[in-house]
């Protein structure tokens, strides 16, 4: 409206034209950034094509990786990544959920601040310091703690999973806390007025309603666990081709292994630099990792959208 008015008044017209650059530069900035990112990702996929052409699905499902003989099978590393992440989730989710329930449902604002600060502190510790603690402390403890089971060394998929659990704990705790606090107080009040104890209102009202948010929190924690490199690299043992015959193998759990990230962060990336097939294989691993992470994150975002639409429907009905 003011634009049309501007045409009649020269001063206004000058002012409108002078500020159009904001719109155009913003759009340009957006487009340049997005296309640069897209081009980069496509370039990565293109770099990985030689190995796909060579091995096809054998790259993903091949059991053996031995670069001097040009054998590039990533399955053992996918298994390692999956096991490490699963261990991390199994250990972190109960603790995170418990802390979030305590913080969101039972504590007053002051105590909640203390808990939140502690969790924030954990979140701020960089992964390399976690790796350091893992190498100098955790390895020894796991080696001694698992002595009855006679592990090979303190480096294992389990050790990496344990370390990772501590690292993803803050993410999951904060998001679970947010999800629980997003459940309206009126819901809990209604439950209490019906005679439910606080615990029951949490179990039967708050938790179920927060469930999608909790699930999203877990998925985001999983996404983080999949991508962690430095800490895992230092304590996972870096043993290739540790793929057991059964899916659930205790032996593989307490033995050294290899994950996608520990392979990518290791020396082979430097060694692969000049060798086209080896380099394509490493790029392929990066693409695999990217796909796995993106799936988790997209799923989490999808749940978030589902929750919002469900909440909108519920609000519309009441």
């Amino acid at each position, binding site marked *: 409206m003011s634009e049309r008015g501007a045409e009649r008044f020269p001063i206004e017209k000058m002012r409108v034209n002078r500020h159009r650059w904001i719109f155009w530069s913003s759009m340009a900035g957006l487009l340049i950034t997005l296309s640069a990112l897209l081009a980069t990702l496509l370039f990565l996929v293109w770099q990985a094509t030689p190995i796909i052409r060579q091995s096809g699905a054998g790259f993903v499902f091949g059991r*053996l990786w*031995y*670069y*001097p*003989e040009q*054998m590039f099978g990533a399955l053992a590393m996918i298994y390692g990544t999956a096991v490490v992440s699963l261990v991390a989730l199994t250990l972190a989710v109960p603790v995170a959920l418990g802390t979030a329930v305590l913080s969101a449902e039972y504590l007053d604002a002051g105590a909640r601040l203390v808990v939140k600060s502690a969790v924030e502190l954990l979140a701020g510790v960089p992964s390399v310091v976690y790796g350091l603690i893992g*190498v100098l402390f955790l*390895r*020894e403890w796991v*080696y001694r703690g698992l002595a009855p089971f*006679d592990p*090979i*060394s*303190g*480096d294992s998929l389990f050790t990496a999973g344990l370390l990772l659990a501590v690292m993803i704990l803050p993410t999951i705790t904060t998001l679970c806390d947010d999800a629980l606090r997003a459940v309206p107080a009126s819901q809990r009040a209604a439950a209490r007025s019906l005679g439910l104890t606080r615990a029951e209102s949490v179990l039967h009202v708050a938790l179920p309603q927060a469930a999608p948010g909790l699930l999203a929190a877990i998925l985001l924690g999983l996404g983080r666990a999949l991508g962690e490199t430095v800490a895992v690299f230092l304590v996972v*043992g*870096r*043993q*290739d*081709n*540790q793929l057991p015959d059964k899916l659930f193998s205790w032996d593989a759990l307490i033995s*050294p292994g290899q994950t996608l990230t520990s392979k990518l962060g*290791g*020396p*082979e990336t*430097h*060694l692969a*630099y*000049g*060798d086209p097939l080896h380099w394509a294989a490493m790029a392929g691993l990066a693409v695999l990792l990217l796909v796995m992470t993106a799936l988790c994150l997209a799923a989490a975002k999808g749940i978030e959208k589902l929750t919002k639409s469900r909440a909108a429907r519920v609000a519309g009905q009441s």
Partner: protein
Amino acid sequence: MQFHRFCLLTFSAAFGLTFPLPAQDSLRVSGSTTLNPVVSEAVEVLRNEKGLRITIDTAGGSTGGINALGDGRADVAMSSRSIQERDRDKFPSVKYHSVPIGQDAVSLVVSADVWNGGVKNLSGSQIRDLYEGRLKNWKEVGGPDRRVVFLNREPGRGEWEVFTKFLYPDRNKPPMTSHPMVGSNEETRNKTGGTRGAITFLSTPWADGKKVFALGLELPDGNVVEANGANIASGQYPMSRPLFVITDGEPAGAAATLIDYLLAEPGQQLVSKHGYLRLDEVQ
């Protein structure tokens, strides 16, 4: 109005810093963690005394350094193994100029429980069985009743090249094995010392006799040769290797200064200080 000015300023500040200044070349050194202590100290001296700009990196070990030299990402490679055919095949246009600055050996080392359990030396065939996973318990070689944990070195490491060359002199590529990996000399020593029943191979001066213990080598004729200075110098201990500083073509400029320093008395003293053999000690 303040906003886009603020952004413009920040943006240009970071980038504007670089353009007016002329790019100054620094010498890029890359490679083996075995040579790193020696070369690092030499570089410190040169930096302080002559103001040379030299950067050092050890990612990728000896092979990583040679690759970087071949790619043009490094000017000087530090290597604890010699240039092989496959390096020449990979980078055919590079004229490798290797300068030995000292001598070192690779020892088989074991953890304390294995050493104290009676294993003091091994033969070549026993080592091969251990590496290929046929020997699974230490009692099979006169040691304690304990599972063998063979810690392998990362494939780029000079020690790995020397070790596999010793075990498989006629083969181009050693057989595929599956062992946990360790990287640098220090990580190797730490992890081996902390694992029961562990064996690995390590640059000899790093076997401190506290965390890890160096084994003697039983030669085919039955003699046992220890990895001490005399045996390494005379060549009796088979797993010895010169320590190289490598350039593409004749070294010039800062590279030449560095190499000259390493070959001269102060540099050779550094070699000795870190436990390796000086050039004049090698026969």
